[in-house]
């Protein structure tokens, strides 16, 4: 990821075909990830798988266009703050359960305020909200780590042979 050959117009990234297709496909992947997060209480999926898929769409963008292009959209401090926001939202839902319900982490929306019907989108109380918080946190974390992996260590020395044991 750190070394990409420059194209004929001197822009980093991959060829024209890859760039065109990935700029169409990344929107679909992002939308699919948000669908998996939101409908996590009705269909298989949930916050963890959906968060990884949303991070995957940004990774596709980073691989096809180069790192600087993504840095203008979503830079490192913004991603770090989104990560902390997701973790804080999850803890906030837990503490609200303590304040409004009886005990820590109780599903206060389902049992007191907003039952909803089964198999609708608005049902199951705080479970969709927890899914959104966890999805945000996982997506921001994985984007952060892959972004930092692509910044680091640009000046290694290739070609040094290693004669060690296996």
């Amino acid at each position, binding site marked *: 990821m750190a070394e990409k050959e420059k194209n004929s117009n001197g822009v980093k990234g991959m060829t024209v075909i890859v760039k065109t297709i990935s700029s169409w496909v990344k929107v679909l992947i992002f939308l699919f990830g948000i669908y998996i997060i939101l409908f996590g209480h009705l269909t298989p999926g949930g916050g963890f798988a959906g968060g990884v898929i949303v991070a995957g769409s940004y990774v596709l963008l980073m691989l096809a266009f180069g790192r600087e292009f993504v840095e203008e959209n979503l830079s490192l401090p913004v991603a770090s703050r989104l990560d902390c926001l997701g973790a804080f939202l999850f803890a906030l839902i837990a503490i609200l359960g303590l304040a409004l319900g009886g005990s820590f982490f109780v599903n206060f929306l389902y049992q007191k305020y907003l039952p909803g019907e089964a198999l609708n989108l608005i049902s199951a109380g705080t479970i969709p909200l*927890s899914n959104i918080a966890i999805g945000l946190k996982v997506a921001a974390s994985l984007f952060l780590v892959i972004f930092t992996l692509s910044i680091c260590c640009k000046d290694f020395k290739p070609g040094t042979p290693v004669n060690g044991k296996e």
Partner: protein
Amino acid sequence: MAIFYTLLLFMIIAAIIAVETKNLLSAVICVGAIGFGGSLMFLFLRAPDIAITQIVVEVLGLIILIRATISRDLTFITGDREFFGTVVSVVIIFVIFLAGVKILETKPVEEIQEIRKSQPQFVTLPDFGTAIFDVAPEAASQTYISQGLEKTGAANLVASVILDFRAYDTLGEATVLFTAIIGATVILRRKSRKLLEDAD
């Protein structure tokens, strides 16, 4: 049942190739094959949540692994391996494997219910294809399946287990993931700050 044996044999062969090959890129690709076989196996074991999560995590894990190996120009490592340490390790691992196979023997369900009349704890696993809560009706899973919809309102029982019945485990998982990512970012960031200082 034949599909389970086929997929497990595929995973074992890919694992042996990943361990023994000298080319690091082939090893990474074989790890991808193991993960893919595992995801198919989860799908046939009726766990669609886990299959989705396994395959997307596999793809991102492959990207991270390839970042570490392919940009280094060395993909062949030669040299001799020391003989005595390898033989002792292999012998010990073989002994543990035999002990494990003896422990993991399975018995039919009726024999286990006979044994449980005299002593209430588990001593053997039931056959593959009977869940644990068939043999031990006091386990919690029976409550989760039969009362999960009315107590939490979620149609996906796995989501109701991780976010309502056992939400503490999810809080612990979020903390562990947070700490691991912060650790990885801190270890890697010192180099780029040094690059910025050198560039100035």
